[in-house]
């Protein structure tokens, strides 16, 4: 794979700064907490240079298992802030100088750090707590003093006299169980604090005790609007590790399915955005048409939301006999319908004014936060994995990467509407040319991955979805990390919404388009 650089903890911050400033590794693709047992706890950073597309992997570890301390890099990449909180939550790695070192997913009264290999899973350590979590308005910050010792400081998030309202976890506009605590001044948002983890299921931990084919079943349940793509990423990663080449037919089918899934997701995005903005009728139009894709999915895969289609070395079953024809009919149907969407919603002066100039994300911020997908492309960052690291048959088809420069909600919305058209174009080029061949390769009954670490990514419906596997040669993964598409998106919510109105928060949340199960995993 790529070069792996081992950097000792003491030099980490300086070396990372050098990588960022001198070699222009400005995109932190993924940050993975690791437990290497006797070697200690550590972090793996996947970096990319957005100018040249060059990739590198950096590793660091701290041998101190009791109190591992690693300097934070969130002053270099903003994306690190939430990811380091996740690593702190799961591994207890204390990131010094991190401004906001709280648990990200688990409750504050959780005992232990569950992804550590020595974690005590018994029910006595963490009984089912039926009481509410006390809201804490302060956060920890570990400051390194001059003599090298570390002290913990408490910092205030919300003052007592602030008018704080909860948006979520049960709220019509959060698209799932995500919670924002919002400090308001009239209608204007002063501060926003994201609380994740309301549907954290510990999928990464579960994967460590499942065989590789079994882990596949869980990926559909991450971003349920990117089920095909997620599973594609995991299958690709395993196939890459095993050195398996899937047949051309499978590549075609996977690519078509990915694109149908993208259209499905973007139609749902359109619908939900309309609903968030109060245009309930357009919401129903979107769902009416999404139903047609789901029918196509159901016919071939047997599932509508959870499809279980990609398998290691192929796909579950061959495409249904009427698949090609149905897809063509759908393409012919959707084009005029898209125009109708634009008439009823996009062109509407109310919608336009509610979206234009609202929640602007600059290109620098998008890269720094790692906000890929439509959000990044709306800010002018060409971050499409299909173009950066082509997989499937994306190198054989012609399509445009939709780019805007405004970075506001309207651009984010338009990127996705235009992407539906591009996806239709991709499918049109492929649908008639699906080559004959095996749909499933013969695999060994027990699948083992050679020792090593592997990363592969696909362009999910809402950004780069990556899978990182570290294997010790067993039939179980030693560590499996999913690079969530949504986590960078919620981490930039604070930047986007500050100074906006509360109605804008809903519009921004709608256009940023996160899916909560994917954030919480």
């Amino acid at each position, binding site marked *: 794979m790529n070069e792996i650089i081992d950097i000792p903890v003491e030099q980490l911050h300086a070396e990372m700064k050098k990588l960022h400033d001198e070699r222009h590794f400005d995109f932190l693709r993924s940050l993975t907490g690791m437990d290497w047992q006797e070697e200690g706890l550590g972090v793996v950073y996947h970096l990319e240079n957005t100018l040249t597309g060059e990739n590198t992997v950096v590793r660091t570890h701290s041998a101190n298992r009791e109190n591992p301390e690693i300097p934070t890099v969130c002053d270099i990449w903003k994306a690190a802030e939430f990811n380091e909180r996740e690593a702190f939550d799961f591994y207890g790695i204390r990131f010094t100088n991190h401004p906001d070192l709280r648990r990200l997913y688990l409750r504050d009264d959780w005992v232990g750090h569950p992804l550590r290999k020595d974690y005590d899973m018994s029910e006595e350590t963490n009984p089912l707590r039926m009481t509410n979590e006390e809201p804490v308005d302060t956060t920890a910050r570990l400051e390194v003093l001059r003599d090298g010792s570390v002290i913990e400081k408490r910092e205030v998030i919300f003052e007592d006299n602030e008018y704080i309202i909860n948006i979520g976890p049960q709220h019509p506009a959060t698209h799932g169980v995500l919670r924002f605590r919002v400090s308001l001044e009239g*209608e204007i948002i002063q501060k926003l604090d994201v609380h994740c983890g309301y549907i954290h299921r510990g999928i990464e931990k579960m994967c460590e005790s499942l065989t590789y084919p079994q882990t596949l079943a869980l990926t559909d349940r991450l971003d349920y609007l990117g089920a095909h793509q997620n599973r594609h990423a995991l299958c690709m990663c395993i196939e890459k590790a095993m050195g398996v080449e899937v047949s051309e037919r499978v590549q075609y089918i996977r690519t078509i399915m990915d694109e149908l899934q993208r259209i499905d997701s973007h139609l749902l995005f359109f619908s939900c955005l309309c609903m968030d*903005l109060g245009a309930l009728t357009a919401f129903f139009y979107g769902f009416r048409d999404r139903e047609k894709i789901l029918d196509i999915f159901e016919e071939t895969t047997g599932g509508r939301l959870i499809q279980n289609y990609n398998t290691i070395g192929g796909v579950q079953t061959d495409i249904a006999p009427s698949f090609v024809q149905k897809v063509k009919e759908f393409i012919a149907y959707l084009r005029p319908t898209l125009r109708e969407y634009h008439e009823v919603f996009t062109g509407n002066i109310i919608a336009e*004014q509610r979206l234009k100039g609202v929640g602007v994300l600059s290109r620098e911020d998008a890269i720094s936060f790692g906000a890929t997908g439509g959000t990044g492309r709306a800010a002018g960052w060409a971050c499409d994995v299909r173009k950066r690291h082509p997989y499937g048959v994306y190198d054989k088809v012609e399509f445009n990467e939709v780019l805007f420069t405004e970075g506001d909600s309207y651009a984010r919305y338009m990127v996705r509407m235009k992407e539906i058209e591009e996806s239709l174009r991709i499918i049109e080029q492929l649908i008639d040319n699906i080559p004959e061949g095996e749909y499933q390769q013969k695999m060994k009954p027990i699948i083992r991955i050679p020792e090593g670490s592997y990363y592969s990514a696909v362009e999910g419906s809402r950004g780069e979805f990556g899978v990182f596997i570290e294997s010790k040669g067993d039939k179980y993964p030693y560590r499996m990390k999913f690079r969530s598409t949504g986590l960078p998106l919620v981490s930039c919510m604070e930047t986007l919404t500050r100074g906006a109105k509360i109605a804008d928060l809903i519009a921004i949340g709608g256009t940023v388009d996160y899916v909560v199960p994917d954030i919480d995993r």
Partner: protein
Amino acid sequence: MFDFSIITNWIHEQLISFMPTGLAVFVECVAIGICIMLMYAVLAIIMIFMERKVCAAFQCRLGPMRVGPYGTIQVFADVFKMLIKEIITINHADKFLYNLAPYIVILASIMSFSCLPINKGLEVLDFNVGIFFMLAASSIGIVGILLAGWSSNNKYSLIGAMRSGAQMISYELSIGLSILTIVVLTDTLQLSEIVERQADGWFLFKGHIPAFIAFVIYLIAGNAEVNRGPFDLPEAESELTAGYHTEYSGMHFGLFYVAEFVNLFIIAGIAATIFLGGWMPLHIPGLDGFNQAMDYIPGFVWFFAKAFFIVWLLMWFKWTFPRLRIDQILTLEWKYLVPIGLVNLLLMVIIVVFKLHF
């Protein structure tokens, strides 16, 4: 045209024939009160059913279909459910105001409802400043909404109530201006008089351009006045869950809900009365045969047909547009509707002075 005052006068005479006048008037008041309440309830049920069917049709759905043929009994079932639900009072709420608020809203609604002239001789409240009274009565409702938001001890409710305060007070201005435009044309404030003056043509046609502009302004502002989409910010369900009535349950919520729908009808009813001639049939000067044929259709049919047509129009607005943001709402009012309304009023004055109307 059938005059209902014949019947009402006959009842009145029958009553005073065996009881003192004072008692007779009292009995009549009670009877009329009951009639109004009944009609109010029936209209609310019709409106709710209509809303659900119309909105479903716009959204390529069928709407309620399960309870009764075509779902006709659905709303009755809902009302029954609402009636037997527990009325919850939450902790730390201002209990007195919290329980009072829905009644203020419904009171304002019923008061303005009784001003509507349904047929010739079927006017309950009809005096020389009728339309003025109606505007005053309907704006009491906002007090109820503000109280509901304030007393609920809920931050969403409070934001919702504040929004509705800002919105309704602003839009009352436009409503007043557009009605004033017609008042200039009629030189009366009495609702029955206004209808009578439209015997030779509805004001929408008589007043042509300014009347039409006033009509459009009235529809927009009226929609905003009853907090319906695209102006439903006070209860914006995707932002504030349910706005000012988040914490209400059972019939207290039911009262807000019913009032919202009947208010919509009232807005449509006023529009029908002052722009489309109320119960007055369609008369085209010069075509006497046609006019006579139109007269055979009873007045209340005309009134309800016109009112429900406008209701349908408002539902069409609601189910097409996304919700406005608070600053857009205020921009629309203060930068567009109010100045246009003022210019329009001036235009109407010029037209009336130079007798340019039909």
